[in-house]
């Protein structure tokens, strides 16, 4: 281990032989892959391939039928979602998910839940520590809104934001938990080209800070552009894995996405 030049290839997240059955439906079969420290890995595949299901398993929202997920060598098997979050693993949701009826700023304040050092007693007795903790959270909240680029919207109701801005707020909420790894479920779906470009910038910024990222996305150019590695899922099974260049030319991937005819066409 000490002979490794850097920790860049240390797996932080390892998914080991996961299977998920919903009654008779097999959503995932024997899925194994790793995400290394600081990597951006994309999980792609056609609709219904099992990507969101994989996210739900990793983040503790769903118990797998078989297999285990480990994060930084801790097994996540028996953890509840909020416990997974406190290990530094944060997620966003495929369907836009913000606290609709409170302001953007309050959303992030909620997201900062785990970051406050005030106790129940501080709160009830209005001790000085409570005031300091709250002031600290407020400045963190402003910072996060700056990072994702929606600080101008701070006082608006989250539900009144544009679709793209709600997606960004979702990312701010995940970032508020101070994660070391982010799981993003189709973050740019519904964003226009400018918003997508801005989002890719954000992703690169986070990547630059050493954040490990697992990305589910249908936007193929974006996936090819940002990913270190790509894992391709079809009918709950991993059919290919590798750097973008290798995935692009993989006949099985093309077949999965475009059907038989297209793959024969591509092979010629």
């Amino acid at each position, binding site marked *: 281990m000490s002979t490794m030049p850097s920790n860049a290839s240390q797996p932080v997240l390892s998914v080991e032989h996961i299977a998920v059955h919903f009654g008779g439906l097999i959503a995932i079969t024997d899925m194994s892959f790793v995400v290394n420290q600081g990597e951006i890995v994309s999980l792609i595949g056609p609709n219904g391939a099992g990507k969101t299901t994989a996210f739900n398993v990793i983040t503790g929202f769903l118990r797998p039928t078989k297999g285990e997920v480990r994060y930084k060598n801790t097994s996540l098997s028996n953890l509840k979602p909020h416990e997974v979050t406190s290990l530094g693993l944060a997620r966003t949701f495929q369907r836009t998910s913000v606290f609709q009826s409170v302001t953007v700023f309050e959303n992030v304040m909620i997201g900062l839940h785990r970051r406050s050092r005030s106790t129940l007693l501080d709160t009830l007795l209005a001790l000085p520590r*409570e005031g300091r903790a709250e002031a600290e959270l407020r400045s963190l909240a402003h910072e996060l809104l700056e990072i994702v680029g929606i600080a101008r919207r701070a006082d608006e109701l989250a539900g009144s934001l544009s679709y793209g801005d709600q997606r960004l707020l979702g990312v701010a909420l995940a970032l508020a938990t101070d994660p070391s790894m982010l799981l993003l479920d189709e973050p740019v779906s519904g964003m226009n080209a400018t918003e997508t470009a801005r989002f890719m910038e954000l992703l690169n910024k986070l990547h630059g800070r050493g954040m490990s990222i697992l990305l589910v996305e249908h936007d193929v150019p974006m996936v090819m552009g940002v990913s270190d590695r790509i894992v391709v899922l079809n009918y709950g099974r991993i059919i290919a894995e590798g750097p973008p260049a290798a995935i692009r030319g993989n006949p099985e991937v093309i077949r999965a996405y475009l059907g038989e005819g297209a793959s024969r066409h591509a092979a010629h």
Partner: protein
Amino acid sequence: MKRLVPYIALAAFASVPLWLHDPYLLNAFITTGILIVAAMSLNLLLGYTGQLSLGHVAFFGIGAYTSALVSLGFDVELIGGIRVVHEPWPVWTGFVIGTLVAALCGYAVGKLSFKVRGAYFVIVTISFAEVVRLVALNWVELTQGPLALTSIPPMTLGFPGVGYLDFYSKQSNYYLVLAVLVVSYIVIQRLVYSRVGRAMIALKENESLAVSVGIDVTRYLVLAAIFSAGIAGAAGSLYAHYLKIIDPDVFAFLYTVTMVIMVISGGKGTLAGPIVGGLIFGFIPVAARSFATPEIQWILYGLLMIIIVFVLPKGIVPAVEKWFSAPNTSVDPEPLQAKMHDTP
């Protein structure tokens, strides 16, 4: 201006015994005040976590009985011939213990039922209230059953060496209730405007998202149940020592319904809602007594409730707040923006 409202209201209520000497009306203020405290406690659960406790009166009754029994003393024989004898303790310890026992019951009910939430929580709370009522009715040796616990001493605050205060008069009881109301209000306010309250609101709004940012659902729901039940228990204790008599009817479903009506009409999830709703529904019987029989009073009660819910579905307080802030929002460029979005 808005920040001053609570202080103005407090000053106004503090002045009531100075100019109001009619014992009937003062009594109405006191009993309404006690019910308002109970409604405030219900609001913490219903308004902030979104959980409907339809057995909330159980905590109120438990506080009342516990406080009364601690201050009256009792002598009961348990199964196996074990006798438990309790000598009367100072009344204020009854208040404290009543509050704590109710809070403990809140903890138990919360732990048991929040795993299954929603409709199940409603059912568990109703059943809990009914079980407690049956215990109060049938454990005659402890509670006197339907004969009621009588001669409950009035609240006394004793400080050895300093002297003591007792609450015999209506005036003093009025101030006692007002003091408990203010403390409860502050406790709820502190909770709601902190990370605890934010966690509760998050759970009500979007549970999956709340959990994904690291909020422990069970912890915050149980915490809300503990505080809610404890405050209801404190109200129950005030009730017992004010009326000096309690029977199993304190567990009547009607009281829970009254609390729910107070919270919903005033505005759930607002600090002032239960107070406004409580004053209205606490004083309807008073206002109507000169011209209506009790049956008619109940019909009026129901009608008013229906009208409020239809006209102001969010309750009175949110409607008033919106009305006061309306001049600002109406000059907002909102309609303009909407128009711009419409144009292709």
